[in-house]
C-alpha cells in the first residue's frame, strides 16, 4: 500500500510517502501563495522523488493549517494527532511530544496506541512560536537559522520579558540601544521562548519519553534551554523532526498504527 501524508503549515509544507510500512520519500518546502499550491508542489516533488505518480497513491491524509479542501486528500487530521502519531510510529516508547511550529506551540501526550490522550496548545499570542523567533532574529539582524548557534557563544545572562512577543521585541530593542552583545540577546531570546514553552507544556503531564518536533526543534539554543529547564533529555528521532506532522498523516492514511 502506498500512503501519503501532507502537512501544510504556516511557514513550510511537508510531505512523506510510506510504502508497505517504510518511508520511501520526504520533502520540506517553503509555503506557496495558497494552501492548495503548496500541497500540489510538495506532493509532486515527493512523488517524483519516489518515482511515483499521484494516481499511485492509495490513500492520502492532510494535516496542518491548509489541510482542508485539498482535492487529492482522502481524510484530514489535526496536526496535534499527526505529530503525536508520527513521532510515536518512529519510536514506540515516545509518550510526550513538544511541537513548536511557525504559529503555534503544543504539548501532546499520547497513549499506548500513539493516539492523543491530552494536549495543550498556545492561544493566539505568538510568544513561544517560530514566528516570534523569526521576528526577533530579524530585529537583531541575524538569520533565523543562526539564532541557535550564535546563542551558544553567549557568556552573559541578560533578562528579557517573556509574557508577550511585543514586550519581548521592546526589550530586545532596549538591549540593542544599550549595546548588549548580539550573542547574549540571542541567548535571551531563546531562553524567553523556551520559558514560554515550559509554562505551556506543564499543563500536560510530561513523561520521561519525550521528543521535540516542528521547525523550532532545529534551534539548538531553544532545545538546550528546554532540556535544562524541564530537566529532561529529548529522545532523538530517526527522521527530521520537522517532518513529524506529515509522517503522522501518512501513518493515518496507511492505517498502520
Amino acid at each position, binding site marked *: 500500500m502506498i500512503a501519503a501524508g501532507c502537512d501544510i503549515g504556516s511557514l513550510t509544507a511537508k510531505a512523506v510517502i510510506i510504502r508497505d510500512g517504510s518511508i520511501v520519500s520526504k520533502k520540506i518546502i517553503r509555503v506557496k501563495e495558497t494552501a492548495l499550491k503548496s500541497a500540489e508542489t510538495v506532493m509532486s516533488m515527493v512523488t517524483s522523488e519516489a518515482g511515483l505518480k499521484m494516481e499511485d497513491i492509495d490513500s492520502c491524509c492532510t494535516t496542518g493549517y491548509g489541510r482542508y479542501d485539498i482535492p487529492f486528500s482522502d481524510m484530514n487530521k489535526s496536526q496535534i494527532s499527526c505529530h503525536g502519531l508520527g513521532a510515536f510510529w518512529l519510536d514506540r516508547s515516545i509518550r510526550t511530544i513538544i511541537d513548536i511550529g511557525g504559529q503555534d506551540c503544543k504539548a501532546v501526550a499520547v497513549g499506548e496506541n500513539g493516539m492523543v490522550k491530552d494536549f495543550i496548545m498556545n492561544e493566539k499570542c505568538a510568544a513561544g512560536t517560530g514566528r516570534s523567533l523569526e521576528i526577533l532574529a530579524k530585529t537583531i539582524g541575524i538569520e533565523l537559522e543562526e539564532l541557535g548557534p550564535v546563542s551558544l557563544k553567549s557568556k552573559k545572562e541578560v533578562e528579557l*520579558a517573556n*509574557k508577550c512577543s511585543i514586550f519581548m521585541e521592546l*526589550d530586545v530593542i*532596549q538591549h540593542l540601544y544599550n549595546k548588549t552583545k548580539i550573542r547574549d540577546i540571542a541567548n535571551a531570546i531563546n531562553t524567553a521562548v523556551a520559558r514560554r514553552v515550559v*509554562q505551556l507544556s*506543564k499543563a500536560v503531564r510530561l513523561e520521561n519519553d519525550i521528543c521535540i518536533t516542528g521547525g523550532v526543534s532545529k534551534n539548538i539554543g531553544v532545545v538546550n534551554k528546554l532540556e535544562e529547564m524541564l530537566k529532561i533529555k529529548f529522545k532523538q528521532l530517526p527522521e527530521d523532526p520537522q517532518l513529524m506532522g506529515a509522517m503522522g498523516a501518512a501513518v493515518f492514511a496507511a492505517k498502520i498504527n
Partner: protein
Amino acid sequence: MEAVSYDYLDNVVNIWRFGRKLTKHPYLAYFNIKYFAPPMIKLNFFNRAELKFAFESIGQGQLSPQELKAMYYCLDALVESVGGVLAAARNNEPVVWFDYTVPSIILNAFGVASICTSMVSKTPNYLGADCLIEHFEAAENAGVSSEICSMTRLPLGAVLMNQMPKPVALLTTAQPCDSGRTVSQMLDYLADAPSFVIDSIYDKDEESIGHYSADIMAMIEFLEKILDRKLDWDKLKTHVEELNLFNYYLREVSQMHRAIPSPGLGFIFLESSWPLRLFASGYPSATKFGKTIYDIGKQRITKDLHKRKKEEKIRVMISGAPMYFMDIYLWMQKEFHAYVVADYLVQTANPEIDTSTRESMIRGLAIDNLHLGMLRQSHGPVEFIIEDIENLIDEYSPDCLIFCGNIHCKHKKSVPKIINDTCKKTGVPTLNMSLDLFDPRANSEDTIKKQIKDFFINNGLV
C-alpha cells in the same frame, strides 16, 4: 493535598524581624545602612535577591533616623500580624482568610488569627523577583489565566503551592473588580471552607451605605457562628479608636504634602501605610508609625523648610508603583529631585469613625472601607475616578502625573479616553505607562526608568 509549609511567609517574617531588630536603634541603623550601602550595591548584594529587596524596603540608605524609627513600628506591626497567623496555624488554632476589601479590624476584635489573601501580592516581593515569578508560574501551571489581574493571581499561586494556612472561613467583598470577584470564588473553591461575601454597592447614598453596613453586620453574625464566640464590642471599640488615631495622623501627613515644598515622605508614608492598613488595622504599633511620620512631617514643613525647598524640584502624583521596583520613589528623588506628593491609589482621606454606638461604628467602618484605594474610585460610575483625579491635582499641585498601569485593570482600560481627556484638561503633563505592576516578567526596571526619564526631559521638568 500536600502538606502545608510556610517557607515563604516564614522567610518574609524573618526578614521583617531582622529589619525590626536593625531599626530598633535608628541612629545606629542609619549609620550602618549608610556605611554598608555603597559596597552592597557594588557587590550586587552577593546576588541574593532577598537582600536587595530587603535593603530597598528600608529605603536604601536614603531614610533619616526618624524615618527608620517609623519603619521600626511598621515592621513591628507586620511581624505581630503575620507572625501571629503562622503561630496560630502551627498551634492548630483557627485562621480566617480575608480579602483586602474586608474591614479586618473586626477580625482583630474577634481575636482570631487572620490573614489577608491580597497580602500575598506584596510579600513574595520581599524575597525577590524570582519569588514573585514562582507564584505566578504556580498559578499558570494550574491553569489560572494570565488575564486575571496579577495582583489577585499571586495569592492563588501561594495557595496552589500550599503556602497558606488552611482557613476555617473566607471573607470577601464583591468589590472592586471582576478579578477580585472571580479570584475570591477560586480561593473559596480551593480552600473549600465556609465563606461570606459583602455585596458591592454602586452609589454613595444613604441607602447604599445602609446596605453595605447591613452586610458587615451579617458578616459578624456569620463569624460568631463559625468561631463559636461572640464579638467583643468593647474590644472593637478600642481597636476602632486606635484606627481613628492612625487615620488622623495619616490624614494629616497626607495634607502636609499639599504644602510646597512637601515634607517628602512619599516613600515611607505611601508605601508603608497600605500594608499597615491591610494587615494591622487598629494595632497600636501602626498608630505609633503614624505618629512618628506625623512628627517628621511637621518638623520638615516648619523648621526644615529651607532645606526642603532645595531638595524638591518636581512634584509627582503617581498612580500605583511596580511592586518589583519598590525604590521607584527613592530613585526619582535621588536622580531628579522628584518627590511623590500624592498617590491616586494609596491616598488617605478616611474620615473619623463614630464609636458611640454599635450601629454608628459599623456604618463608620463601611465608609472607612469605601475610602480604600481602588474601592473608592471603582465601585461606581466614572465620575468617582474623575473627581478623585481632579481633586488630587487641585489639592496637591503636582507638576506631573505618572500613571503606571496596571495592564490588567479593566476599570482604567475601559475608560482611557475619559481619563486622558481629564488629565489634558488640567494641563498637567501626564505619563501613561502600561505596566504590569506585579509581574516582573512583563517589564524590566530599566525600561520603566527610561520612560520616566524621557518623560521628565521631554516636558522640561529636568
